[in-house]
Structure formats: structure tokens, C-alpha cells
């Protein structure tokens, strides 16, 4: 499972990087979404892989090492997901405004001579 997850994070990250290097603004927003998946997963796995051990403390069982997943990365990722939504929205609005104002969807607001 570690291998699958690590490879997948790598693939998501690579796709995201490829996209944010493209010149069209919509490509960049899709790239940002993919990047945020990759980064969130990456943050998440710093708590290691734990199956069927959600971080719910219980009164009956005292703390045992390895019985629960690490809650800290989870909390960090949770806020990261929500903030990610807000920044995507912001980027989307900037993208639309830029397209309306400049008449092009190039990220720099103007077409370069030798561009795709």
C-alpha cells in the first residue's frame, strides 16, 4: 500500500506541475487542484498508514501506541482542504476577470509571439 500511495502522490504531483507550467489559465487552475490533492495526501501520510484506526479517543481503553491514527496531520489537512477551496475560487474569479479584460486566457494577460 505504501508503494501505491507514494507512486500515486508522485503522479498527481507531476500532472499538477505539468499543468501549472502551461500558459492557459484554465490549465493552471486544474493543475492547482491536482497539486492540492498531492500535497494534502503528502501531509496526511506523515501520520503513516493506519487502517481502521480512526483517532477517536475512548474512555474504556487507555492510550496504546499504534492503536489510533495520528490526528494532527488530519486536522492540518482538513483546514488545508477548505482553504484550498477558497483559493481556487479566488483564482477562478481572477481568471475570469483577466479573460474579460484582456481578451486572452494566457496567464500573463497577453499572447506572446512564440507561444502555444
Amino acid at each position: 500500500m505504501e508503494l501505491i500511495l507514494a507512486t500515486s502522490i508522485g503522479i498527481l504531483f507531476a500532472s499538477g506541475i505539468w499543468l501549472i507550467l502551461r500558459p492557459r489559465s484554465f490549465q493552471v487552475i486544474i493543475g492547482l487542484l491536482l497539486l492540492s490533492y498531492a500535497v494534502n495526501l503528502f501531509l496526511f501520510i506523515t501520520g503513516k498508514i493506519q487502517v481502521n484506526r480512526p483517532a477517536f479517543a475512548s474512555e474504556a481503553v487507555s492510550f496504546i501506541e499504534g492503536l489510533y491514527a495520528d490526528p494532527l496531520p488530519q486536522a492540518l489537512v482538513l483546514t488545508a482542504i477548505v482553504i484550498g477551496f477558497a483559493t481556487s475560487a479566488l483564482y477562478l474569479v481572477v481568471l475570469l476577470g483577466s479573460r474579460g479584460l484582456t481578451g486572452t486566457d494566457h496567464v500573463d494577460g497577453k499572447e506572446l509571439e512564440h507561444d502555444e
Partner: protein
Amino acid sequence: MLLLLILLPFVGALIAAFMPAHARNREAWFAALIALSGLLLTFSQYPVIAEGLSLRQEIRWFTAIDLNLVFRLDGLAWLFTALIQGICLLVVVYARYYMSPKDPVPRFFAFLLAFMGAMQGIVLSGNLIQLVMFWELTSLTSFLLIGYWHHRPDARRGARMAFTVTAFGGLCLFIGVLLLGHVAGSYDLDQVRQASTVIQAHPWYLAIVLLVAIGALSKSAQFPFHFWLPHAMAAPTPVSAFLHSATMVKAGIFLLMLLWPVLAGTPEWTWIIGTAGVCTMLVGAFLAIFQHDLKGLLAYSTISHLGLIVCLLGIGTPLAMVAAIFHTLNHAIFKASLFMAVGIIDHESGSRDMRALSGLRHVLPYTATLAIVASAAMAGVPLLNGFLSKEMFFAEALLVGSSSNWWMSAAAVLMGIFGVAYSLRFIQVFFGPVQTVKANPHEPPRWMRFPVEFLVLCCFVVGVLPELSIGPVLHGAAQSVLGQALPAYSLAIWHGVNLPLVMSVLAFVGGISFYFWLSRYCQLHQRDRVPLLHRLNGKAAYETTMLILAASAARLERQLSTRRLQPQLIWMILAGLAASIWLLSAWPTLSVSWPNDTLSLAFALLWLVGCSCAIAAAWQAKFHRLAALILVGGTGIATSVTFLWLSAPDLALTQLMVETVTTVLLLLGLRWLPARIAAKKLDLQASARDRLRRIRDLIIAISAGTALAVISYIILRQPDNATLSRFYLEKAIPEGGGSNVVNLLLVDYRSLDTLGEIAVLSIVALTVYALLRRFRPAIESIKIPPQQRNPLDPAYSQLPSEQAISGYLQIPGVYLRLLLPIILLVVAYFFLRGHNLPGGGFIAGLIFSVGLIIQYMLSGTAWVEARFKLQPHRWLSFGLVLAALTGAMAWYFDHPFLTTHTLHLDLPLLGKLHLPSAMFFDLGIFAVVVGTTMLILIAIAHQAVRSHRIPGIKTETDTAEERH
């Protein structure tokens, strides 16, 4: 008390700024009142000072790094405070008559008071860092005052020059002070002053002296920084009278006196300070003779007199210090009166050019008398105050060096000669035939002349009765600088015939002959260039430096930076890549065992789909946006399932909801993004350059992905290390009162972070809203899309709400409306159980938003908003206020901000209920999340309603209005 002395002018400045523009009298009265009450406060402290004690007030702030607000008032500070406030009071009275009714007076008095406050701050500071802050504040406020007439280019230029030079000095001073405080072990002035031996023995001593000297000398317009002062004369004359006689330029002097016990007494000090003083004193006096502008002459004479004081400080004997303090006071008095007199001349005769004025004594007899007496004080004529301190200076100059070394005495006499010469040059405008620019000049109003009269009277009183009038104050000030080692000195007018007196006589005779020689043989009154020294042009050097700096900054910016996004991103990614490679190579024990993984087939399949979606999205995002969006959604679902699989149900829920909301958001956005036409259709071939670029990007992307994959794998294979989780899990139930640790982390353990986060969410939402208010869609996308314009479609003739009620969407419409209460119930369920099981404010808020959005999507904006007015702004503010109040409630119970408390209630029917205060915090989160999501989505959705309001195109709202 001391704090009040500083706060009073600042508060006054604030009030003065908001007074009506034409109430000249009221504002002047107000400013005068502030200055007067400050002055009275100062005088009320005199009994303490007179006993040789000092006052101290301390407000602790950041004790760990010795950063406290400390105010102290000793003899020296008292003298300066009285001087600042006294001159300010006179200047305010004078300015009332000087300023024209057309000038925006509130601004003037506000700046003036703020400047006075900043000066008080310098004088009363007992902490070095605090002192530098007030120091910078004087630079800033003097910039505003010098540039008061900002419609005039010379005022702007002069203000900028003064600011650049003094702020540069301020920066040096700041560094110097930091070094000083570090060496002394404290920034507290009283402690620094006791650490003199440690500081002087330290290897940094020279650096400290140099940096402090640059700061002080640039402020006091000392050579080679003197050039800003004449250009600052573009300020209104009251400003010049205040800043350039008694305050701004004296700040440097004050600092040197303040640090004199710490830094002085070494050859380095004498050489640096003394040399600068002597150069300034001679250069300034010489240049003053050749000015044609009355204020320019006074500016250079100020430079010269400041040079004299700095020179005295450089000499460094205790008696020289007494002379320096005395001359500071004397110079402030006669120079302020001279500036005001020049202002009167300018005001009445229409010019300050000495070539255009003469014989003014016939039309301005009183002003002429006053100005002549004041300039006699400036020249050092006996029975006036300037004479006494100049005698003391001559006496000290004689002591420098041995009996064979007489260069200092020569310089002093030379300076005296020049001083007499420019004083003669100054009073020459009063003699000869009457010649003015403005017709019918006459004496100014009574109260405009009053400040000058008062100051000239001071010159006289101090000159005749020095011991009685100024003796005790001077004694106190000198004692506070010198400590117990106060030398015996006498302030008498007549010391008998001694060497200083001979030097004075020499200076007078020399000065008078020099002046007449100059006007006879050198065309003094016509020549435009200063002889000998005209190449010494500080202004040109300054402008050249600024030009070079600006040009090189622009060149650097051109070469090192770009406004294009892609190069910036590439460099960022490459830097990250390099960092990760460096990290990997530096990893000490990379013991990664090859997998003995239990390969889960289902998990592998899940990510096969997830990765394929990601790659396909990357491939399709350019021309097939909708497809790319759907594919990204696929990856999002895979991520969400992974969270669920790997014991993070909260994350899975959040991810799923955010996925939904993001997709709706991008769909709404796609509506405004005109289609791209595929290159294949246009029959375009990518150029070789483009191919190369793509290959490069592909290599970068793949290597970045590989790097992250490797790092992830290494992290996953590392043995478990002790993390913080144990603490959180153990304390969850006993102290947090809940078992869902992830939720507890958000609302309890790290609630301050969450408070910040919801603030960010609100800010982003408002930004999106603001950006969309001025939104101009692309022209191609303004029309209703063709899919909705097909007349064959029965929905063509229906509005969205009709489609949902009676059209083809009738059945889904019924379902979704039925679903709304159920969704609300689910929201309540997830919200309430959040403390113990997956759920909480974030998740509930997102579900709530999704429930509303589907209503919007199905029935259209107009239909929903006719029935249900959601006001997202209010949700935002309610949520933020609730969260902050919940946190602040803890203060009421004497706990730190955001401490939570759980209330255990026993209610009838419901049974045992525990009610943590974190729940109200969570409710705040809920409201902010709903507000943010809905504000963003509704703002975008409303564009459809807004943009259709173009003539000829009927919209839903229009039709609805017609029906009413």
C-alpha cells in the same frame, strides 16, 4: 505624567486634522493651548529637576528582549522639552498670521503638533530603540512639514531630499544603537550610560561611534550631509523657524549630548565629531556670506552654528559641554526670531531676495530693529546671548592641543569673522534707499511680531543677566550629562581682558573689514557663484547618487526578475527540486527496506483510476475543459476514498463536500470562459520551440513527481516516531470533553489557528465578491449559450423556475425540494455529533451549502431568492463574532483567550447533556463556512442575472418584473 507630555501633542494632532479647513483662529488657539499646557506641565516638574533629580516612568512591554516604554526627564531633557514647547507655542502664534487663508491650515497644525510630539518622544525616551522610533517619526513629520506646499516642485524636492538624508542617517543610527545595546547588555539608557568603560573597550566601539555619528550628523545637517538644510527652506517660514532653529536639527545635537558620557573621551570621538564640526562650521559660515536668499543665509548660518556646537562636543571637556548646551539654547532663541523676522519681511515686501530689497528700516522700523538686534546676537555682539557662548567656545578652542598647536583657535576666529560678515550681509537689507517688490509694505499685525519681540527680549535678558536668567537651568542640564564632575564656570559678561576677548575683537574687526572688502572687490551682491567652494555641491552629489541607485535598481529588476508567470513558477519548482535532492543526499541513515507490502488489489485499482484521471485531466485541460473538470473530480473521489480507507473519516467527508462545491464553482466559471478552438481544427502545427518547451516542462514535472514520490515512500517506510498525537489522544476526553480528536484539534487545542483560518476564508470570500462586482465577462460569452437557444427544445420558451415546477425538471424538482429538510436534518446531525464522531462545523457547513446549491441549480437564482433570502455577509460576520466572543468569554473567567469549558447539564426528557463552549466556536465555524461558500457561489451565479441585462435580451428577472 511624562507619557502625557508625548501623548498630548499626538492626540492634539489627530483632533486638529479633523477641524474645519477655514477655522484658522480656532485651530491656532487649539494648537497653542496644547503647546501651552505641555509647557505648563513641564514647568510644574521644575522643582524636581532643580534638585538634580530625574523622573522616570516605565511601561513594561517586552521585557525578554529589553523592549519597554521608558520615559525619563533629567535636566538636559527638561531644557529641551521646555525649549521645544516654548518655541512651538510662539511659532503657532506666528503661524496664525503667517499662513494665508487659502492654505489648508488643519493639515499644517496637525503636522506641527505631531512633529512636536515626536521631538518630545526623542527627548524623553529612556530606551534606545524607542528613541530611534521617535527619531524616525521626526524625519517623517518633518518631511510632511517641509513638503507642506506640495504643489511646489521645490518643496517636494526639498522634502524628499531632507527625508532621504535623515532617514538614511536614522537607519545607520538604528544599527548603531542595536550594536550599542548589545554591547552594553541593555537598551535602557540609564544602564547603557553606566556601561561606558565596557563599550569603549569593545572592538565594536569604532563602528558604534561611526554609525551613531552618521545618524546624528545627518540630522543636524553636518558636513558632508549639510546640503539638505538649505533645500528644506522651501517649507513655510514658521516650519523653518521651528524645525531648523530649535528642534529637528537639534535632535542630532541632543543625541550626541545624551550619549556623550558613553562614547566621548576617546581620540576616535574627538576626531570624528570634532572634524565634522570644524568643517561644517567653516564651510557653512563661508557659504552663508554668499547667499542671496535671506532664508538661505539663515540656513547656512544654522549649519555653521550647529557645527560650532558639534565641535564643542568633539572637544569633549566638561566646560565645552556646558558651552555646547548654552549655545544650543542661545542659537535656538536668536535663530527662531531671525527666521520669523525673515517671514515678516517676505510677507510684507514680497521677496526674500537680498538683491531686490533694501532700506526696509524705513517701512518696517520695528521689525528692522528686532532683526538687527537678533543678528547682532548671531554675530556675537556683547550684551547679547550669542556673545557669551561664543566667548566660551573661544576659551575652549584655545585649550585644544598644546600651546604650539593653534589651528583650532585659528578656525574659531575665522568662523567668527565669517559670522560677523554674514550678519552684516543680513542686516544690509534694512539700509539704503527703499526698494521692495510689493508696493506699500507696512508693519505686520501686533501678534505676528510678538514672538519675535519676546525672543529678542530673551536674547537681551540672557545676554545681560546670564547667571540669574539661565544659570540654574544650564547647571541642571550640564549636571545631568556630566554627572558629578561639573566644572566651575562663570556666566559673567566681563571676565577682564583675556585671550578670548582678544579673539572676539579680532573676529569683529576682521569680519567688518572682510565684509566691506568683499562688497567692494568681489561684487558680493551680484555674484552667483560662491568663490573657492562652488565645486562643493552636495546637492549634485546627492542627485547623482539617487540617479545611479534608481538606474541600477531598475537594471537589476530587469535582469533578475520577470512579470511572466511561467519563468517564476519554473524557478520555484527547480529550487524546490534542488532542495529535495539536497535533503535526500544529506539524509544520514536511509534504511529503506524493500516492501514486504500487503498489496491490496482494491486500493491499487482505486489509484489506477485516480492516477489515470489525473493524467487524462492534465492532457485534456487545454481544449476539453469540461472533461478535465470531470476527470479532476475523479481524482478527488479517489483521494476522498483514500482518506476514508486510512482512518480519516472527517477528511473524507470534507474532501467529498469540497469536491462537490468546487465542481459547481468551476462549472459556473466555465460559463464565462469562451471556448478554445483545437489546433487540429485550425490545422496548426506546434513550432519546434513549443515542442522543446513542452519537453522541458515534461522533464521538470516528471522529476518533481518522482522526487515527491520518493520522499513520500521514505516517510512511509520510516519507523514510527513519537509524535504529539499521544498528548492529544490522552487529554481528549478528560480535558477536551470529546472523543473525536481531529475535531477537538480544530475547535479546542488549536482553536486560535482555526480562528485565523475562518478569518482568511471570510477575507477571500469578500475579495471574490468585490472582484465580481466590477466583473466584465469576455465579449464572446455574454450571449446566452447556444445550447439554451435551440427553438426545438421545449425548455427554450420556459424560464428555469418554470422548468423546475412544470417543465421537464418537474420530477427532480419535487425530489430535491423534498430533500432540503432532510439535508438540513443531516446538517444538524453532523454538526451536533462533531465533538465525538466524524462531523463538526466545517463538514456541516459544507453540507448545508451543498443542500442550498442544488436548489439554486435546479430552480434558478430568481426562484430561490424569491422564497429564501440568504445573506452570506451576515453569516460571515455572525460566525466571526460568535467565534471571537466565545474565545473572549474565557477572559471573563480569568482564563487565557479561547480556553474551553464543558458544561454538564441534566435536562428533563433529554437526559444527560454535555455542552462544551467549543460548540459555540464550532457554530461560528459553521456560519463562516456557509457564508463563504454561498457568498462565492452566489456572486458568480448572479453574473448570469446581471450580464443579461443588455438591451434586447430578456432575462428572468425582467420577465418576473413584468408579471408583477
